[in-house]
């Protein structure tokens, strides 16, 4: 939300950035036009194609270009490249408030300007004014990259915490600045290579450096898309497979929602939540082999039928065991019918021996089983089912999980509506 505090902050950043530029232009070194134009062209293309480096975080390639411009032609050139980089057409079209655009430009110019000041202060000089050995620019360049990092982290965190009205430290943690830092190191190194190739006027070399990045960019984008679509892919296929039993239709999807909500409430890591979501979607995949009559039978099951049903966690685990991607869910699927008092199947293991994710899945699974209609009985109302959860806590289900689940169910209307 753009409050007046945000506007004040943005104005201050832009003012500082402008002062910085004025200061730097008094110390400018002779510049060549072609390298700067080249770098501007590169960032315009990459920014508008939303380049993502194949490492964590989404730092764009433009830092490398701005850094190269600083090393090659001095800080003012870097500022020019940074401005070009932050005028991103698709961003502007996206209809965000003007102050956010101003902030993006201002903080980038200020950060890169401070970096340039540090570079000059420590005796670094532009490569364009004569070839320099790496040892001459090593210290100033390192300091410049560090300055950029610190300035950027502080400015972005303040901006984000004002905008989202959260505490500063919380924002710093949530923005993942560690992976940002490691990307920055790589991009700075890339910038050094670009700067030297520019100073040799090695256009062919530059082309050879840019081409791999362009091709990796495409691959990496597809990778990100496929990664994001993985869970929904599993969901559509599982939904299709579940279609055979009218009474369990949608069951896995609902269980996945409950389980995810519990895990998030219990503060599990992002990757654990993802594993749990996949496990929940696939937890009954071994049930397909059980004949329809057994599954929907209102009568008492025979021993054979019972054995068949009890086999489904193992069968399900076996089905996914060959999928590298689902390696982590095998145990979760296998143990989702274990009970904390050891009375579950297939292995009859106890309490803490059951993986935590499987205990969460078990709670979500029983709750959905209780609240949905079956051939032989209608579904239980929510309140009654919550009471039932409480009753079996510590015996069938894990106490801590149930406590979290009950809290989620009573707090979070979203989860309830999901059913």
């Amino acid at each position, binding site marked *: 939300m753009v409050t007046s505090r945000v506007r004040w902050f943005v104005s201050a950043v832009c003012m500082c950035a402008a002062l910085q530029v004025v200061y730097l232009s008094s110390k400018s070194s002779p510049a060549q036009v072609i390298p700067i134009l080249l770098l501007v062209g590169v960032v315009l293309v990459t920014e508008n194609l939303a380049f993502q480096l194949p490492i964590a975080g989404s730092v764009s390639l433009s830092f490398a270009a701005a850094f190269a411009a600083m090393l090659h032609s001095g800080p003012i050139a870097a500022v020019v490249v940074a401005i070009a980089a932050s005028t991103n057409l698709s961003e502007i079209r996206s209809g965000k408030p003007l102050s956010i655009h101003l902030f993006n430009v201002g903080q980038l110019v200020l950060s890169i300007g401070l970096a340039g000041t540090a570079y000059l202060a420590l005796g670094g000089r532009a490569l364009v004014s004569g070839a320099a050995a790496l040892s001459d620019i090593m210290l100033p360049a390192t300091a410049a990259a560090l300055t950029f990092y610190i300035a950027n982290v502080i400015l972005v965190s303040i901006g984000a915490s004002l905008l989202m009205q959260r505490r500063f430290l919380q924002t710093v943690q949530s923005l993942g600045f560690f992976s940002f830092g490691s990307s920055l190191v790589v991009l700075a190194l890339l910038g050094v*290579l670009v700067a030297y190739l520019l100073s040799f006027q090695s256009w*062919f*070399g530059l082309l050879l450096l840019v081409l791999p990045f362009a091709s990796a960019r495409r691959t990496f984008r597809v990778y990100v898309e496929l990664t994001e*679509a993985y869970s929904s892919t599993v969901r559509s*296929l599982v939904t299709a497979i579940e279609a055979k039993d009218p009474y369990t239709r949608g069951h896995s999807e609902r269980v996945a929602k409950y389980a995810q909500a519990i895990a998030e409430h219990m503060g599990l890591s992002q990757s654990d939540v993802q594993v749990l979501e996949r496990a929940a979607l696939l937890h009954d995949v071994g049930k397909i082999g059980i004949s329809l009559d057994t599954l929907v039978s209102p009568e008492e099951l025979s021993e054979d039928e019972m054995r068949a049903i009890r086999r489904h966690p193992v069968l399900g685990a076996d*089905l996914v065991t060959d*999928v590298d991607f689902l390696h982590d869910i095998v145990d979760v699927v296998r143990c989702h019918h274990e009970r904390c008092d050891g009375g579950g199947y297939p292995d009859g293991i106890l309490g803490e021996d059951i993986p935590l994710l499987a205990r969460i899945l078990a709670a979500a699974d029983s709750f959905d089983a209780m609240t949905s209609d079956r051939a032989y009985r209608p579904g239980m109302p929510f309140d009654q089912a919550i009471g039932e959860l409480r009753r079996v806590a510590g015996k069938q289900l894990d106490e801590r999980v149930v406590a979290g689940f009950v809290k989620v169910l009573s707090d979070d209307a979203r989860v309830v509506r999901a059913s």
Partner: protein
Amino acid sequence: MPYLLSLILVGGVVVGWVLGHVERPPFDILYVLGLTLSFAIGRMLSIQLPQGDRVQVTLMVGVVGLMLRGADELLIAFLVACMIDVAYRYLQGGAHAARQGTLDSIRSIAVIALMSFVQSYVNPASVRAPEGDGPLLSVLVVGAVFVAVDVLTLAVQQWLAGGAPIAEGIVLLLRPLGSVYMVHIAMAAVAIRVHPSLGSWGLGTALLLTLILQNSFNLYLRIRRGYAQTIEALAHAAELDRPDDTGHARRVADLAVSVGRQMGLTSDELEKVGYAALLHDIGRIGYEQPEADIEHPDRGAEIVAGIPFLEGVGPLIRHHRTAHEGDAPRGAMVVGVCCRYDRLRKTHGSRGALDILLADERGYRRTVVDVVARTVSIDGSRLVPAKSVS
């Protein structure tokens, strides 16, 4: 047999080594150590191909080492790195992995040594201290030859180990690895260009960037593999409630990919054929009544329509039963005929099934039947390598 071939290669190599190197720069232990480390890191970050094999690409280090210093130190460094790599694999995967690693190391050493022949044709001095961009071209040429030798020997090695024929093996390797090789060659050229000014820092930076870029391709290959395995597992799961059908989708997929390849479908089409065959019955689940059966391809197509990874597979599923010449993708007809063959085979046997299909089918589908007949009679038990869906 692979050992024999390796021995011959290594023999050829030693001769090449002796004949090949032009001048010998003074031995530099730090350089060799750095090179060893680079090779070892590169080899540990192996790339897993869709077929399941792991390959190591250390081309960039090889080209740079070759061009800057010649083959002597490179071979020593590589040998040590290979030992580290084999030990690492032994710890990770036991004797089998170590054996694979040894075989592959011998091959790679042979490749590097063979390359010293090529290196003697370029002017090393001009490459070591490049004035302009000219020498970059010779780096690219050496890199390209390097790739050619590497891929060829790799394909031969896989063929000897029971893999695809050499020509097909080369295609299967170059398709996923082409971009990785390109990255390596280009970055080798950049490293050599900046080397006079940046020294080992420049080489290290270029290597780091190469490995990061390579990793993005590796991630991409890994997620595609993950999708392929997931779809296969779910296709298998979908058959569990029809014991008569168990394995039907897998068999149809193997047969359809093999037949499609012989009918000249592109590798993109083949991939779609494979997935369409695996999932062609997915719309049947939950609708066992005969009258609903006619619509199952439509339902199946709708199910996969929302899945980005399966773009273009839907139409093949939709048309696999009804497709005739002109009105449907070729892949749909391949899947359709293979599906019919597999079902008829169950009741009528191979011969009987083929007779029915030969009498029934017309046009393009009839041609498919001929290829099916040929494929089945060539190799009745094992139609195609089990991991044909890439």
